[in-house]
């Protein structure tokens, strides 16, 4: 934030000098042309033009967008950062009214207000182009000694910051809910036990208390795992891992749950053993998370398949379901931490948006790759590919 403010102030100062120098360069160029007719060179005219060129180069490396319009509201400067942020090539913008190339009513209005009425200020405005963005715009009028006026807009792209804020808010909301729900249930059970429950009821409550505690422990462990994975501090113990046996074990532990949900769970393994170099516990976590997701998002009479397919030098572990699928615009984001496709569904199914981020980190720590294919109402297939 501080660096953005410093950049904005620096950009405005540089621009003011640039504009003044370009006017000076223009006047000196005219003078030079007149003097050149008389055969006299001027060192001052050359240095002014060089200064303007240097400032132009500086403008182009600024990390913030800079747009300048002249007295006729035509764009005279449009740096590289402005081109990236606003999605318009400089040659499409320079020499035209800004609204003809950048379709932002607010940016156009504020720049014209600075030019015509001297109204300066900073505001956050949306830009609806090929992608939606959130921009902070600072506008300023610059008055020349010759009475001309130009207006500057410095544009900072806040989109990613706002996305991260939204992700953080969603995460805090999800985690709070995930913790509050079992805590509320535990409180009720503890109060019932305290007021005196008989033997079998008490045993049942204690079992439920243990289950809710386990649920909270899993959540906290996932958070810690992800933090360690992302900071590279999670220790991996690499050895030879029989991937087929691993899949068999994880599927076996989930079979009772699949039966109780009425979901058919199949395992399809190659005849030969498939071994890779890896951390067995972490690879169990991968298969566990993917299978857990598949079962959570499958309905009764659904079908989940786990298997391994082989190609020369590669083993691909896949988990496939025939559940509701993932919308195409959500698919690129599903491995982002805290990302949940459907908040209401993930809350009822018990998701925090961390499982797939953890899976991706583990797979990539093993030198592998993970992909997801999905079609709405037809299901999703996750594939983890490792070298063998």
């Amino acid at each position: 934030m501080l660096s953005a403010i410093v950049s904005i102030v620096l950009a405005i100062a540089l621009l003011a000098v640039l504009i003044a120098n370009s006017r000076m360069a223009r006047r000196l160029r005219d003078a030079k042309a007149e003097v050149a007719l008389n055969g006299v060179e001027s060192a001052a005219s050359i240095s002014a033009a060089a200064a303007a060129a240097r400032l132009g180069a500086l403008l182009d490396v600024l990390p913030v967008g800079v747009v300048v319009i002249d007295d006729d509201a035509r764009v005279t400067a449009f740096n590289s950062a402005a081109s990236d942020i606003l999605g318009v090539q400089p040659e499409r913008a320079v020499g035209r009214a800004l609204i003809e190339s950048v379709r932002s009513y607010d940016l156009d209005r504020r720049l014209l207000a600075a030019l015509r009425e001297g109204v300066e200020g900073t505001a956050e405005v949306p830009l609806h182009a090929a992608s939606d963005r959130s921009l902070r715009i600072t506008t300023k009028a610059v008055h020349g000694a010759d009475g001309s006026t130009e207006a500057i807009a410095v544009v900072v792209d806040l989109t990613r910051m706002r996305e991260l804020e939204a992700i953080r808010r969603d995460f805090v909301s999800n985690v709070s809910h995930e913790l509050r729900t079992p805590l509320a249930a535990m409180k009720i059970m503890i109060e019932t036990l305290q007021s005196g429950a008989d033997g079998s009821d008490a045993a049942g409550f204690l079992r439920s208390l243990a289950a809710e505690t386990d649920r909270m422990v899993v959540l906290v462990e996932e958070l810690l795992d992800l933090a360690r994975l992302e900071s590279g501090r999670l220790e991996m113990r690499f050895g030879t891992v029989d991937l087929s046996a691993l899949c068999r074990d994880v599927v076996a532990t989930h079979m009772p749950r699949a039966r109780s949900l009425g979901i058919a769970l199949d395992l399809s393994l190659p005849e030969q053993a498939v071994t890779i170099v890896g951390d067995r516990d972490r690879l169990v976590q991968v298969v566990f998370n993917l299978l857990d997701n598949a079962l959570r998002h499958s309905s009764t009479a659904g079908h989940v398949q786990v298997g391994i397919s082989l190609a020369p030098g590669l083993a691909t572990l896949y988990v496939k379901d025939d559940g509701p699928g993932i919308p195409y615009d959500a698919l690129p984001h599903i491995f982002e931490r805290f990302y949940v496709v459907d908040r209401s569904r993930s809350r009822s199914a018990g998701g925090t948006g961390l499982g797939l981020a953890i899976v991706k980190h583990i797979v990539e720590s093993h030198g592998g790759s993970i992909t997801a294919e999905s079609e709405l109402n037809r299901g999703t297939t996750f594939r983890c590919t490792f070298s063998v």
Partner: protein
Amino acid sequence: MARENFHRILNETQQDVLRMGSLVEEAITKAVDGLARSDIALADEILNFDDYIDDLNVRIETNCLNLLALQQPMASDLRTIAAMLDIIIDLERIGDHACDIAQITKNLAREPQLKPMIDIPRMAAKAREMLRESLDAFANRDAGAAHLIPEKDDEVDRLYRAVFKELIEFMAKDPKAINRGSNLILVALYLERIADHATNVCERVAYMVEGVPKKLKRSVVEINEVAAHGDALLKAGRTET
């Protein structure tokens, strides 16, 4: 009025059309966002937007009529002015549809969602894309682009049919879903109409540049088959009860 002044006013009026277009695009974006999040504050913001859109509409129309009355423009200038007078009608209707969607957001705010909205935001994204590209074609006087954009209307129409069918099925299974379902069908219809208006803008741009009025590719929404399907579902429901 000197000729330089005529071209200055003509250029500024064209810029006003682009301003109106960008306001309208923002209104559609906010309208669908507000609906997806049941955000009443956002819906109110759009209802206020309409005043700005109407002000620009009046300004553009006034300038165009003044130019026609006082300057006797000819050839491409005349077609440009004629095109702008038509385009702002389409933009104004799109703005009205955004307001209609905002009003539906307010009406449905207290009801639970039937299911996560997927196809409606897709329709909105496609309709916005068509509108944005049609205005780019206007800004750049690009008849080639104007000819290609209407082909995207097929995707919007396909999504509309899918939304219509799905919502009819929801309503047939659960009468409590009828209020929300019927309002969402209206939203889908408004988005389909927005895509049609974007196609109209393309037709005006093509005429403005090429001088030949022409209907560009347009798909007709065939809802008869879907309506028949809906009738069958409702009849089956009545037979079962």
